[in-house]
């Protein structure tokens, strides 16, 4: 008799305990979510405030820079021009150094009748009264020359004329 009464009371007690637990759990969860939500809203508000300060700072700086617009444009153009000028100076060829390096090879007994030159080949028409000096020029000076980027030398159009001996020397360059 007393056992059946005890069972019903125990079951009710368990149910009440479960309900209390669930209630407490839901209160805790809601409180935590509420606090989290409020914190997030406060954080967003603070960040947006920061953002508007930076935006204001940017506006102020743009306002100051507007008064320096002429200097700004000039500076940009100067730097742009310098970058392009540097490219040109690095890339352009200097024909005078090639011609000069060849001219120093010719002794005073030789006359330069003509010169034709491009980036790839420089041609000198030379004349001399002394045939032996032609041999010396070719065997000694030209063979031992240290002309930069020289690929080959051709001797062409050799002839005897009123100037003595005339011929073309073609100096071919790799670049």
């Amino acid at each position, binding site marked *: 008799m007393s056992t059946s009464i005890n069972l019903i009371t125990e079951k009710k007690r368990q149910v009440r305990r479960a*309900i209390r637990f669930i209630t407490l759990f839901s209160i805790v969860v*809601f409180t935590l979510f509420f606090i989290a939500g409020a914190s997030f809203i406060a954080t967003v508000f603070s960040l947006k405030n920061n953002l508007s300060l930076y935006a204001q700072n940017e506006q102020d700086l743009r306002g100051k820079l507007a008064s320096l617009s002429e200097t700004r444009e000039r500076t940009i153009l100067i730097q742009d021009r310098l970058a392009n000028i540097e490219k040109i100076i690095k890339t*352009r060829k200097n024909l005078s150094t090639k011609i000069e390096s060849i001219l120093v090879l010719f002794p005073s007994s030789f006359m330069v009748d003509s*010169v034709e030159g491009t980036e790839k080949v420089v041609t000198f028409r030379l004349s001399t009264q002394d045939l032996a000096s032609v041999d010396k020029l070719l065997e000694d000076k030209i063979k031992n020359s240290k002309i930069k980027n020289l690929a080959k030398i051709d001797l062409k159009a050799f002839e005897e004329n009123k100037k003595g001996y005339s011929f073309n020397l073609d100096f071919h360059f790799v670049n």
Partner: protein
Amino acid sequence: MQDFKGIYLKYKTYFFPILLLVASFFVLLTIILPQFSQIQKVRQEIDAKKIQVAKLEKTYETLSKTNDLDSKSSFSTVTKALPSSKDLSLIFSALTSASSVANVELSSFSLKVGDVYGTRVDTASAVSGFPAITVETTIKSLSSLGLVKFVEEMHKKLPLSEVKKISGVEDTTTITMSFFYKPYDLTNLSKQDQISPLTSREQQLLDQLKDWDK
């Protein structure tokens, strides 16, 4: 009505926790998750603004320290070295100056026909894609050294040029050269937000150009 009252009385202890859980779920979906993504977005915007402000501050610092006279003088030099358009007076001035220094006689000079007032950009004979105007000039020199000196001097004159071909007989030589120019690309230039001071390399180049311009 009696049924609802009966259900309510039977389950009233469950209503409160269920209500709280539903409210929690509602707070999660409508406040927490949207605000979390908003925080990420605003942080990114702040980072972008910080970078922009730093660029503008650096630009302002550079420009406010720039001496106006120096800047105008430098601008004049660089635009003389690489004009934005074909400038015959500059070219002629460079040729006469080089001939004077090299002690040669400048007999004549001519331009490639059709290029003087044309708007079409000719890059066929140019260095590294720069447009150029082709000039043919004839000089008279008693020796080859005068010719060499003239070509050397042209290398140091403004506007910048490059000798493409030399053809000489006795004392008369015809020299074909390209004078470079480059129009401004204003769309690209206007997009620039950050301006830094000239680097030491740029300053050296500018000094060299000023030296050539004397």
